[in-house]
């Protein structure tokens, strides 16, 4: 019954890009992460750290600094431009040249009226934040040497700038430098002549300035007198980044050794008077440089060259032994990078700059569970398609028949006709309808005759594809006035329906034949991470970032009895404790009651016939069941059959021949592609 032939694939060389910088918006609880390839990702910390939006980068666009101004997001980079992002349509809204050479840092004042940018030419440029754009206001007095880091005093009256060998404090009103704090050169480095780079500064309300520099020091300064209060030597290498907690009682510093060191403002004795900055904790969550840090109320969020985003709750701020206190590592994107052509046995791997099309291998005959079958034909890379232009690929799709391939960048969509029978050929469909210009999700209908593309203003464009021709058919508009981007597109197997989900949490089902909205699923608080329509029962299964599963009948337009039962009983605690979202829902045509789900660490078959696991039931029971007799097994099994032998999953899908395709990306393979970490002396070597 539950026996599967599994194509276990480890040749998808997906390589996440290094995290360069992060910024946290505490009002919306959104974390924005910029990666080395220029991609900007937005995580919703209020919704189980779900990665709800991704804006792909482009060649030559390295984001060096990020800044939230209210709900608006600005970035700046070494290309010398300040860019504002359109978070609804997932693309840069406008860019403005600052004319100061490469920009190292931007920072907004707490009122959100001014944006300061630190430039290579030694100027701090002030921009006024207007409704729809930013406007250059003036330069602060120009300095020698680049401005590496900036920090506003919370009142907005002063601004501290980290430079080479010094920190300058400017009066924001007059634009004059009021203090010059000289930073000592390396204490340990052999060459004393090397300049020390102040990688990060923090300006606190009590006029304390904290700096982290390339000599491995964290220094506490008195910003009023301009004197050095204290020096903490953290490392022989660089202190790359600092972050201050919202209440300014704690500061964290990230180093090149991969450690994050916490300093707290506490009194050394019982009496409350003489508080000082004391080094308290050291976290080692990374193997490489920590380039980006965020200090939320309860957690330390760090990222760096080893590409992992780590959320480490501070145990004095959260309740212990709750889900909140667990450390999280986010390594893989929360969206699908693999498309499967179910009928043709093809896989499409999406990289940021190219696509790979593979044909699955074949094996002889059958085997017992646990066997590894001899591979008769090895998998074969059919096509490697390099993207055109400078923009990175944001989405891609492969038609179920294997005859069509489409991908989109921020600026364009490309559609190709594939011939894979004898001699492989690929033909670009030259004329695409002009509606297909800004797309962030693509999908083909199950009969490969239609292409669905989510577009601006939460709309979905339907186009027909036939014989090297692509014709615009219709645009599905959301019934609500939501403008959040559609991040999930799921055409039904029978070709009648299209389910869409947007990051506002809305799920709509459209009738593809009548080209109109069929129904909307009641919005629940959490963002859907995967949706799919059952091929026979016409019910929609949605899984959300809070790990809840719903089943909505499209005929009755209500939640099904099973779904209500599931909600009434509640999910098993162990299911809720998983920290990766379900990224794909598929069905097994052989067993209509089976729902296949997967996240990065497991895949699961939910059998709707079997009883739901109660809170005391052993949830992960596969190995127990294995040892039982058939009768016992039936009595002890529950609806969630979780298989955990495959790890770091990027895709689990069921092909038409009922074999499973499992794409794994072992962490070791990722680690082996990282640059070498800084040399650390171990013992007496």
């Amino acid at each position, binding site marked *: 019954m539950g026996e599967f032939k*599994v194509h*276990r694939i480890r040749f998808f060389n997906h390589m996440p890009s290094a995290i360069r910088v992060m910024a946290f918006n505490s009002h919306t609880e959104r974390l924005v992460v910029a990666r080395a390839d220029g991609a900007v990702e937005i995580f919703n910390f209020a919704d189980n750290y779900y990665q709800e939006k991704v804006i792909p980068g482009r060649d030559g666009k390295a984001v060096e600094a990020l800044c939230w101004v209210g709900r608006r997001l600005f970035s700046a980079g070494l290309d010398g431009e300040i860019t504002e992002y359109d978070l609804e349509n997932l693309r840069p809204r406008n860019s403005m040249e600052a004319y100061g050479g490469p920009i190292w840092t931007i920072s907004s004042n707490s009122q959100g009226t001014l944006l300061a940018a630190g430039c290579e030419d030694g100027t701090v440029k002030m921009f006024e934040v207007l409704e729809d754009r930013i406007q250059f206001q003036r330069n602060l007095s120009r300095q020698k040497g680049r401005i590496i880091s900036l920090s506003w005093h919370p009142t907005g009256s002063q601004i501290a700038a980290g430079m080479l060998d010094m920190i300058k404090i400017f009066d924001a009103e007059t634009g004059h430098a009021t203090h010059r704090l000289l930073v000592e050169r390396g204490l340990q480095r052999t060459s004393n002549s090397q300049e020390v780079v102040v990688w990060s500064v923090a300006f606190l309300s009590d006029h304390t300035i904290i700096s982290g520099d390339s000599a491995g020091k964290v220094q506490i300064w008195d910003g009023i007198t301009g004197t050095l209060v204290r020096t903490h030597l953290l490392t022989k290498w660089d202190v790359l980044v600092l972050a201050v907690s919202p209440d300014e009682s704690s500061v964290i510093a990230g180093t090149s050794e991969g450690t994050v060191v916490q300093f707290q403002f506490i009194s050394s004795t019982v009496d409350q008077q003489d508080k000082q900055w004391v080094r308290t904790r050291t976290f080692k969550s990374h193997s490489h440089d920590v380039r980006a840090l965020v200090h939320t109320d309860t957690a330390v969020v760090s990222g760096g060259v080893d590409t992992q985003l780590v959320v480490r709750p501070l145990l004095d701020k959260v309740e212990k032994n709750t889900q909140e206190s667990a450390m999280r590592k986010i390594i893989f994107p929360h969206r699908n990078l693999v498309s499967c052509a179910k009928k043709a046995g093809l896989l499409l791997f999406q990289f940021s700059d190219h696509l790979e099309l593979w044909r699955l291998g074949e094996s002889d005959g059958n085997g017992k569970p646990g066997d590894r079958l001899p*591979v008769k034909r090895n998998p074969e890379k059919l096509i490697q398609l390099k993207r055109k232009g400078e923009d990175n690929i944001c989405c891609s799709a492969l038609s179920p028949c294997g005859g069509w391939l489409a991908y989109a960048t921020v600026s364009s969509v490309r559609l190709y006709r594939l011939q894979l029978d004898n001699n492989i050929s690929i033909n670009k469909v030259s004329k695409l309808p002009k509606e297909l210009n800004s797309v962030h999700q693509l999908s083909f209908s199950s009969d490969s005759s239609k292409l669905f593309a989510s577009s601006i203003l939460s709309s979905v464009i339907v186009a027909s594809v036939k014989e090297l021709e692509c014709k615009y058919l219709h645009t599905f508009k959301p019934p609500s006035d939501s403008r959040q981007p559609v991040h999930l597109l799921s055409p039904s197997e029978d070709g009648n329906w299209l389910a869409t989900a947007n990051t506002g949490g809305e799920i709509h089902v459209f009738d593809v034949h009548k080209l109109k909205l069929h129904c909307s699923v009641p919005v629940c608080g959490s963002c859907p991470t995967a949706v799919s329509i059952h091929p026979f029962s016409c019910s929609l299964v949605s899984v959300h970032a809070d790990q809840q599963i719903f089943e909505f009948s499209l005929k009755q337009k209500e939640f099904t009895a099973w779904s209500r039962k599931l909600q009434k009983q509640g999910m098993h605690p162990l299911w809720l404790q998983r920290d990766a979202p379900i990224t794909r829902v598929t069905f097994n045509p052989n067993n209509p009651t089976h729902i296949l789900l997967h996240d990065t660490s497991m895949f699961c078959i939910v059998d709707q016939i079997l009883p739901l696991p109660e809170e005391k039931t052993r949830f*992960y029971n596969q190995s127990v069941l294995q040892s039982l007799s058939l009768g016992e097994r039936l009595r002890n099994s529950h609806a969630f059959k979780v298989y955990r032998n495959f790890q770091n999953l990027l895709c689990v899908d069921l092909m038409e021949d009922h074999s499973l395709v499992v794409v794994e990306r072992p962490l070791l393979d990722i680690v082996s592609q990282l640059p070498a970490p800084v040399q650390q002396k171990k013992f007496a070597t």
Partner: protein
Amino acid sequence: MAALCEGYTLCGLVPAQNRLCSGLRGIEEERDSDHVIVTESTRCATLYKVSDQKPLSSWTVKQGQSLTSSAVFNTKTSEYVAVSDNKVIRIWKEEDILLDKAFKATVSADVWMVHCPRGGEPVVLFQRGDVRLLDSLLAAPHQPVQEVLAQEESIRWSTSIVTEMQQMVIFTTELKGDHFLCLQRLNPNSLQRYHLEREEPGLSPLSFSTSYRDKHICLLYLYPNGHVYESLISVRGSGAGEGSEALSLPRSLILSLPVGDDLLEAAAAVVLDDAHVAVVGVPHPCAGPGKDFLCIWNTNFQTLQAGKEMAGKLYGQLWSYSNKLFIPHGKTLSVIPFACPKSCLASALGKLKQARAEDSRPPALVPSWNNILHGEKHQPPKTAEIRKTVSWITDEDMCLLQTASAEEVKKEVEGLLTRQDVQDLQLSLGQLAVTLVSRSLAEPAFYTPSTLQQLVHTQCLCHSICPDLVALALEKKDYFLCQLCLQFFPDIPEVITCACLKAFISLPDADAERLSLEPDGVSFMQILISREHDQVGLQNGFTSTSCEDEDAGSGQQRRRKDEENARNPPEPVCPVGVHKAALINEVLQAAYSDTFLLPHLKDLSSQHVILFLQYLQFLYQQYSLEAFPQKHSFRSPSQNQVSWIGFACCWMLKAYCRTFTDLLIESSSCVQVKLFLQLGKIESSLQQINEMKVKEDVGAYSIEVIELF
């Protein structure tokens, strides 16, 4: 297994011109284990911090003078004491830079050595044998000193130790080829002289070493022929013998080191602990005739535990302070840290057993009565004695054992066993058993279970003597003999223990119940299980035979049991039969070492492991009930033993399947606590598991079949 760690150089040496002498007079421990003061035989004493390999300060006497006694450190006053030019006592502190400006006092006679043991006071030993406390000596430096030794007698070696009661100075002397040990007690003073038995003519001890344990001074000395003797001297010995004739000092040969063709010249043996001796200047048994080795021998098992070749010439000098050996060799003084963990026989016999020839089983540790019985008569060589005892079994006997029928052999062995005149039972019985076992292995029809059982029952055999015995018993399915061996052999290797476990677990219960086993173990299990099945029987006053022995406390136990029954806890069911359980208990109590057992436990099949775990779980639950009569049988496994092996299994299982861990965790809270205690120990084996996992890497692509239940 003792081990020598990677050494490091403390300082360079300036050996004497003829290169016979290292140029070191002595090394003494300073304020703590990390500081030593090294005295050169010329003019200089240097204080070193050992871990830094760095001299802290150095003191030199004037040109023309020389230090004649190694400098010692008086921890009470933080002063250094040394003797220059035999008669001048010098005392200085660390801050003194020039020795000549420090305190000095000239005494009336030549000083042999100043000693200052830890916790004791400095004492001065004069060359003529008199001993004075330094304080009293300095009160009147010119006081007359006694001639304790005879005219031509001279001191060879000396030391000082502090016991619970008093401080004493021990020194050895030589007089016309005879060696004496003098034990000088201080406060009240008394001198005891012992005469060391003569070794072969012309041989005098190369080195001495003392240790103090259990109210006895243990003197260890090495002869050039490689024999290491040990003599025990009670510190409480009567003072009556003072001045009278020297007593003879009984000795026992604890090691007979391989020396090759010629005698040792520069060698030393130092006691490390009660089972280990460090030896320098003796050839390594596995390497050629070169003598440049530092070795650690286990004296209990006569095995070489660790060896290290030292570069350059060895001078027969060796010091040991707090797990570090100080050894001058060539032109350097090296520090070699060592570790001597307590070893079980199996591990001690492990690595270097093959280095020793078969016939060098430890000679019997019989104190020599020769002197008492025959006066000064020379002792016959040991080897001859061994040969004599071996010949106890005549050639005819051996021939009979080889050919006769089982019945006759049985009679013959019984006859031999009844003989009273046997001197070295262990060896001869071993020979007997080896003969029988090898014949049984060669001839499948021949097997004498009762005879072998009898032999094992003598408790003179061990696995090392007759290595095939347990394997034979397993092959013949003679589980009673297996049980006896597990009980009486202290040195069964873990692989065989595991083989027994496997055999026991896979034995069907029905077959097991038909076995006749050692009654004590069985009755223990019967009680355990009858408590479970038949509570009433116990309450009615039924006690098994072994329970009757326990008069004290049993009433109380029963009362507690009644309370327990009143609460009526859910009773677990023993997953195996009584006999099978008794057999498994024997395995649980066998001597094993965790590192060696773990690899073999992996060989158990998962069904067996589950059964085994269930049984362990049952034992746990029984043990965790308070009313359980913990001590009622000698053959009941201790809770620790159960727990340990449980974890071993538990972790082995983790390799296969995680849920078994849950199974065990759910079983009792006691397990959980222990689980965390054991985590550290098992870490290394976990790593092994991880390595195994990596090996089954699937490559970039594979097609597998999985099943979901």
